[in-house]
Every structure is written in C-alpha cells, then in structure tokens.
C-alpha cells in the first residue's frame, strides 16, 4: 500500500487560511490503513483545525467526507456535491489522489494534507516499513523476495557491503541489513549458490528516473 503521514497542523492551517469553507476529503484505502487520511483522521483534523483557528478568533466551516479511493473516478464522483459546496478541498489522500481530484475538478483548489512517503507494508500494528520503490523491473526472484533496491541503504545488487553488524545496517542500526535477510532467506530456500551469479547494473530508465510512466492496457480500452 501507499504509506503517508499527515502534515503538521501548522502547515495545514497555513494552506487553508485563505478559505472560509473547506471540505476535508479522506481516502478509505491506503492512507486509512496507515492512520493518515481515513474517516477518523478527517474527523480529528477537522476538530483540531477548528480549535486552532478559534483561538485566533477565526472561524472556518469544515465539511467532512471520506470516499473509498481518491484515485478512481467512480469514487471521486461521490464527492462531487460536497466539493461544489466548498471553496477548497483539503485532500488527505496520497499525491495521486490529490492530483486526480484536481484533474476532475479543475476550478477547485485542492490542497494536500498528507506527505506521501513510500510503498510499504503494515509490519505490525502501528509500524509501516518501506518494501518497494516501484522501479519498474522487479528482480525479487534473484534475492529470495527481499528487495535490495528498497531495503538496502546502498541499493547494492551484488552485496553484502560488509559493513553490517549483528544483522543491522551500518548506516542506521535501526535498519535491518537487507543483505543479511537475503542470505538468511536463500539459505532457508537452499538457493544460496544463486548469489554467485553477477547481477547486471539496473536499467533505471524503467523507473521514475526515466520520466513519468504510463501503463497502457489496450485490452481494457474501448
């Protein structure tokens, strides 16, 4: 899922300052799971914003709505009426959701309330970890399904670097050494010797470094 984190209230307050009537629009999929932009976060942020502004003698009308996904038109349309009632939208979706809302409603200012951070997993309740960089050329099969691009601080394809200690990265001991995980996993699978093969340098043109990407599925386009 896409993992994001709500912006600081001071930053959000500055973004909504010019408006007297806003819609805080939540997204009920990824950012809900990481406690950044679901129904609960929409309600909490609305309340915090009203309180913050009331202490300055200002009032803001805040409407709350959460749609299932802000990155799909059929769900975005559910917000159309609420959007038309407000001067601006504060979207608590990831960057994709914010832009899709803006594209669908070109005359309405759409403001981001969340910092989109990474593609990751819920490792345990309250802990989200980065697992994928969306590089466009998945090589997980070579590494026992542990990604050295996303999880090795040095992005080494032919590791390990030799700097890890007790399975922790020398860059930051809070980070598990991805190469330790790769070796442990390949040992468990009985595939350790596959590491003898040299891995070619990565073609980064298939990643975002090659410019914005597009996926076209002709079989679904009428």
């Amino acid at each position, binding site marked *: 899922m896409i993992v994001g984190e709500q912006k600081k*209230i001071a930053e959000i307050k500055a973004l909504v300052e010019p408006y007297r009537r806003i819609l805080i629009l939540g997204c009920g999929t990824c950012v809900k799971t990481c406690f950044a932009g679901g129904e*609960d976060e929409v*309600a*909490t942020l609305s*309340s*915090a914003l009203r*309180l*913050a502004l009331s*202490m*300055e003698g200002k009032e803001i009308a805040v409407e709350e709505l959460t749609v299932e996904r802000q990155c799909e038109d059929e769900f975005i349309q559910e917000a159309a009426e609420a959007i038309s009632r407000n001067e601006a939208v504060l979207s608590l979706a990831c960057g994709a959701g914010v832009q899709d809302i803006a594209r669908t409603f070109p005359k309405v200012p759409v403001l981001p309330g969340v910092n989109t951070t990474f593609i990751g997993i819920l490792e345990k309740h309250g802990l989200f970890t980065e697992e994928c960089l969306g590089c466009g050329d998945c090589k997980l099969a070579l590494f026992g399904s542990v990604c050295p691009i996303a999880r090795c601080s040095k992005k080494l394809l032919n590791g390990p670097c030799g700097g890890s200690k007790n399975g922790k990265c020398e860059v930051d001991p809070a980070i598990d050494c991805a190469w330790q995980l790769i070796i442990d996993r390949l040992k468990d699978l009985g595939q350790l010797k596959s590491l003898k093969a040299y891995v070619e340098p990565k073609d980064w043109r298939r990643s975002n470094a090659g410019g914005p990407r597009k996926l076209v599925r002709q079989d679904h386009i009428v």
Partner: protein
Amino acid sequence: MSGVCVNSMYKKFTLKITVFHCINTFNDAMTMPWGEDKEVKINFIKLPCSSMVKDVFLLRAFEAGADAVIVMVCPEGACRYVEGNLRAKRRVLWVQKVLDEIGLGGRRLTIFNVAPGDENAIVKIIEEIRDDVVALGPSPAHYVARLA
C-alpha cells in the same frame, strides 16, 4: 467542593471539565460531591471500556467548551479487555501532542488509572485538575468565542 474559578488574568469563569471514564472504574450508582456545584460543571461520559475513547472525542470535548478533559481508566493489568487502558493512554499522549501543536496545551488533557469504585481517588483527581486548570485559565478556544 468549592468552585474557586478565579484567575486574576481572566473574568470569573465557570470551569467545565469533561470526564471520560470506563464503566468498570465507576458508574452512575456513585454519588459525586460536586453535583450541586454551579461553579464547576462536570460532564461525565461513560464508556464500556476506556479504549473506546477516540482522538476526535477528546478534541470535540474541547470544541464543546471543556476547559479540561480527564480520562479515567482501570489500573494497568486490570483492564477487563486486557489492553484497553493501554490503548487509551497511547491515544491521550497523541492528542496531548495535537493540543500542544495547536496551542491549546496538552496539560488540559490528562489520564489517570483508578481502581474500581475508589471514590476518594476520583474526587482528589478532579480537585487537582480543577486547581490546575484554574491556574491555566479558561480554554483559549472558547474564551475567545465568549469574548466575541
């Protein structure tokens, strides 16, 4: 309990405290000594477990005019639902940060472990918070609105 709600920086104000509490901590059968006190308004909100207290409930209590919010939970290790009181504590800590961030002040929100039916402890907590909030003054969120 006397309603000593005078802070020289502010006009005399009626102190409003909202208390969220687990029904296992205390219930309606208990008689609280400040029932007739017109200087301190206490709004008790009972929950089946303190873990039911959401971030937004705490903030909305302040929006509704509370000068202080207290969450009373069972002692650690004594929650009927195992970890409800621990979850409530985490949420209170989170909302305290939000209150600090918006300038309302995390001190206005507190959490206490209370043994079931310990009326004396409950009275003492409320008196302590009352004195603390009288010193802080009314909640700036609705003090501004009252002046407007």
